[in-house]
């Protein structure tokens, strides 16, 4: 905490002038009043704490284990890591694949939905509002169940029967709430552009479509990037939910691995601790970059 002269200590001058507030006061105030309170504020100490927890749990498990050295919990974990992380394109790689595609589809659909929300026609606005609120406020697991169990497991495309793998259904299931949240981000960004921009565009005889695409939307993109990246990190951390439905991603495969190792209880800590660590290692750089971009864009407004 920085000290304010005259308040926390002696004033360095007799003039009633305070130094400008240190950055972190103003920045944190903006942070807390921000529109997107699902902010993912990952810090390095979270990572260190996770690592420390993992190491502690693993050490205890090692100490308690009565198995020979090559079957100790850490050695077992080490043997199973390739399986959990990238087995046949499943595992952790599948988590990332699902998050990538769900984000891509969700962003495109969400942008459309968000722009529909500011349409001049009431029915379009209302319909878009309903869809957005519906998918924003539905539990992701329930949506996932609906999509995965209601979608057929194979479809005929162009006369050929194509099997739709589970992970693709999970992608669709996750893209729906992402679509709704991105729509809100887009709508918020469009509505945050000062009305003066709309008026001066109107005065220059731009049509509404030209105004939206050439003047308003380019200004929105900068504002949308931090919350967009925030949602990507949240999505990635939510993909293990798909394991409930049998998608072979990292949590599912970790559970399978433990069953293969006779479900020894001392494996639980190391295996799940490892999952926590790798998810952190992936999401932390994203969260950090998001915070950096937020700070960078804050000043310009």
């Amino acid at each position, binding site marked *: 905490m920085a000290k304010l002269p005259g308040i926390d200590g002696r004033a360095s001058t007799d003039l009633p002038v305070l130094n400008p507030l240190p950055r972190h006061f103003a920045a944190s105030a903006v942070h807390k009043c921000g529109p997107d309170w699902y902010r993912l504020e990952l810090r390095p100490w979270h990572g260190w704490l996770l690592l420390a927890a993992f190491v502690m749990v693993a050490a205890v498990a090692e100490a308690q284990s009565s198995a020979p050295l090559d079957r100790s919990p850490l050695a077992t974990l080490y043997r199973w890591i390739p399986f959990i992380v990238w087995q046949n394109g499943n595992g952790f790689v599948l988590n990332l694949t699902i998050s990538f595609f769900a984000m891509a589809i969700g962003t495109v659909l969400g942008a459309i939905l968000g722009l529909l929300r500011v349409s001049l026609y009431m029915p379009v606005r209302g319909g878009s509002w309903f869809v957005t609120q519906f998918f924003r406020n539905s539990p992701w697991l329930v949506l996932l169940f609906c999509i995965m169990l209601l979608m057929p497991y194979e479809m005929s495309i162009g006369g050929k029967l194509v099997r739709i793998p589970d992970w693709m259904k999970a992608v669709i299931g996750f893209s729906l709430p992402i679509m709704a949240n991105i729509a809100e981000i887009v709508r918020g960004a469009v509505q945050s552009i*000062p009305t*003066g*921009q709309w*008026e*001066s565009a*109107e*005065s*220059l*005889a*731009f*049509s509404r479509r*030209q105004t939206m695409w*050439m*003047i308003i939307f*380019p*200004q929105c993109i900068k504002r949308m990037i931090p919350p967009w990246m925030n949602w990507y990190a949240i999505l990635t951390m939510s993909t293990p939910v798909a394991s409930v439905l049998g998608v072979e991603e990292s949590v599912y495969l970790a559970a399978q691995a433990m069953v293969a190792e006779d479900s020894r209880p001392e494996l639980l800590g190391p295996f799940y601790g490892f999952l926590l660590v790798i998810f952190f290692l992936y999401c932390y750089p994203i969260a950090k970059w998001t915070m950096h971009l937020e700070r960078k864009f804050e000043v*310009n407004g």
Partner: protein
Amino acid sequence: MVSLKDVHKSFGNLKVLNGITFDVMKGEVVCVIGPSGSGKSTLIRCINALNPIDKGSIKVEGMEVHAPKVDKLQLRRKVGMVFQQYNLFPHKTAIQNVMMAPIHVLKQDKVEVEARARRLIKKVHLEGKEDSYPGELSGGQQQRVAIARSLAMNPEVMLFDEVTAALDPETVKEVLLTIRELAEDGMTCILVTHEMGFARELANHIYFTDRGVIVEHGPPKTFFTEAKDARTKEFLSQIL
């Protein structure tokens, strides 16, 4: 050129324009002055169809501005407007700001438009600043880019909505000089302003509005010295 007849407008219960009638001839410079809330800005915005009116008629070059099927784009090619808050497009450079409308709205040739834009930027005394973004320009410079941008559309009437109100006195001079040159070139200008000195020197006709009506009007020679209405006298005594 521009004629208003018995224009009424309310925002909900608040009556902002209460029967405004006046005409502006081609080449005239008209200043609208008055206290805050008297409806000056609303009046100007109604001329440009930015706000709808409840009753009355506004005609620009014979075109009825508030007719139900009016071609707003056609109207706005005739009427240029400059705002108090400049409202430049922050993601484009100064010259791109000036070029955008003729290229995309008037569909003119890019090379011609660029040449014209450079001439206009030179005209507003901003050579060398073509490739600066609005964020890099001072308030007065931004306002002059805004004027150049409106001029690029070749309007017949220019509307100025308190364009110097957000500027410090030195930059006010720069902007007024630009407007003065415009007026001397024969552009029809309608200004809402608090700059009495400017109004006195340049205006052909001054209208004083208060509470939505034109209280008094006249050429500057007689307006400032022989004001008849008590309200006008009160206003003038406070600012002169």
